[in-house]
């Protein structure tokens, strides 16, 4: 039997497969037993009640989709009274994703979701920071460091920082998050993108722009995962376009200790249990006993050190 357990800091997950924030909710229990997952990750919640963006909120593009869901949220109270109790029935640990528009409210929310039943907090620092012209916290090392320091002080729970691909400073941002006390990095969120209906000449999303996810971003997320794994000493959770067992393996080999599955669940709601089984089957046949045998095992000996940290594609 292969051993699928993986460690994310002090947490041991029964397997490295978990959902990506915003692509998962209690409702998926209608399709399969959610206790098979390595972790549960909630949609990002905010303190206040928010409506989200105008429709249409999604559209499809080649090998992926755009979404401008925004962060519709029923607020902190609803989370405490309705969502949190729901997950109490599961053995699988619950990771709560949170977000706020400025560092101080972010930290206060972080303290407020530090509750029994919450195993870790994923901080969605890819969201716009109103104190910085709306640029996401995770676009710059300085703003990343600032917000992460406050978040770290606000909770004793494991703190996962979710990075954005919309930056030219992946490595510096990852290092700033680590230095400020992140326990793990989730790499990464969606890429800012757009599509236009050429007949109506209207943007395909009600909100004009949105986030690109799905297979088309996989090579970018994989590159970031690799760079972060080389640059920091905390575990990386890979995310972006994962839909096949081969994708899971690619991220583990690049240096991720676990992965999040997002868009693929929309295409195939049973993809996560299938990936768990498929990963076990692959490891069994390939004679790989445990996840650490895969993590970071990329054969990059011949690569020049300089290349690892480059941010230009030439």
């Amino acid at each position, binding site marked *: 039997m292969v051993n699928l357990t993986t460690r994310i800091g002090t947490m041991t997950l029964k397997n490295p497969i978990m959902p990506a924030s915003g692509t998962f909710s209690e409702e998926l229990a209608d*399709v399969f037993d959610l206790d098979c997952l390595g972790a549960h990750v909630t949609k990002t919640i905010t303190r206040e009640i928010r409506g989200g963006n105008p429709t249409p*909120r999604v559209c499809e593009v080649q090998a992926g989709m755009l979404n401008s*869901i925004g962060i*519709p949220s029923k607020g902190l109270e609803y989370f405490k009274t309705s969502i949190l109790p729901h997950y109490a029935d599961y053995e699988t640990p619950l990771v709560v994703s949170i977000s706020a528009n400025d560092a101080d409210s972010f930290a206060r929310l972080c303290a407020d979701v530090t509750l029994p039943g919450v195993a870790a907090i994923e901080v969605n620092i890819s969201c716009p920071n109103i104190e910085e012209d709306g640029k996401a916290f995770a676009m710059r090392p300085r703003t990343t460091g600032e917000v992460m320091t406050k978040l770290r002080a606000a909770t004793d729970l494991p703190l996962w920082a979710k990075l954005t691909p919309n930056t030219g400073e992946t490595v510096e941002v990852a290092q700033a998050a680590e230095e400020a006390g992140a326990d793990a990095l989730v790499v990464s969120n969606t890429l800012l993108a757009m599509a236009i209906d050429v007949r109506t000449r209207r943007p395909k999303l009600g909100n004009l722009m949105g986030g690109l996810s799905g297979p088309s971003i996989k090579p970018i997320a994989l590159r970031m995962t690799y760079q972060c794994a080389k640059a920091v000493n905390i575990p990386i959770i890979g995310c972006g376009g994962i839909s096949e067992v081969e994708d899971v393996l690619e991220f583990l080999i690049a240096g991720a200790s676990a992965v999040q599955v997002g868009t693929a669940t929309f295409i195939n709601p049973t993809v996560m249990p299938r990936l768990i*089984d*498929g990963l076990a089957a692959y490891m069994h046949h390939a004679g790989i006993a445990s996840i650490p045998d895969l993590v970071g095992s990329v054969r990059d000996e011949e690569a020049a050190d300089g290349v690892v940290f480059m941010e230009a594609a030439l």
Partner: protein
Amino acid sequence: MQNVTTLPARNPAPAGRVVEGTARVKSNDIVTGDYRLMVLDAPREMLDCRAGQFFHLLCPVLGGFEPFLRRPMSIYGFDAEAGELRFLYKVTGEGTGALALLRAGDDLNLLGPLGNGFTIREDWRNLLLVARGVGLATLAPLAMAAREAGCNLTAICSARAKNLLMSVEEFRATGAEVIAVTDEDGTSSVEALREVIEGRIAEGGIDAMYTCGSNRILTLLQDIGARHGIPGEIALEQQMACGLGMCHCCVRSFRRGGAIVHERVCREGPVFSIQEAMGW
């Protein structure tokens, strides 16, 4: 490496009432114009359906069509005994274009049944539905449900021209009374419809009204319903990603208790109260 969808999902077994699985195409023929009827040989566990529910179809990558997301499709008919599931669909784009290429013997992956179906309250006797175009696909199974509930059903079927009317025979077969209206006759205008419906109400009364899709008809039924205190339900459409309630892309606005609320068409719907629905 094997494609993950071809892997067996050994563990865990489905715990809920929504099934993701494969059905085999029995036939997939043109009904009229761009409309096609797909008949599937579906596994029994998918067939615990209600009129108004839908399936989320994984349309194939085929013939140059590359749909990425699933496509929602109302249950046009289901027969648990015969293991049969039917969809009536209009070929409009990438997904339905691919669907139209499926042939008998091909497999189709679907997820469902999803959403909440139409309500028929115990004390209702006379039901009315107004359907046009692809809306028929959604409303047709109400005919069966009405018969099972021992109700009388009047179906106003609307189309551009007589030869484009669909499902009239199917409705009649369930004992429903069919009123066919067309644009070419001028019998399908809002005012003509109002007259027909008001006539019905005057004659024998209507306990509930059902419709779907058209803004024009929604406004009419809201007006008639409010005036006579007749409840009603409308099946709404919105673009979907997950179909299960997770992604929040399929929201629509509704009037409720003086406020405007957002509800997910896939989860709280697709069937909503006519009075709460908002035009678009």
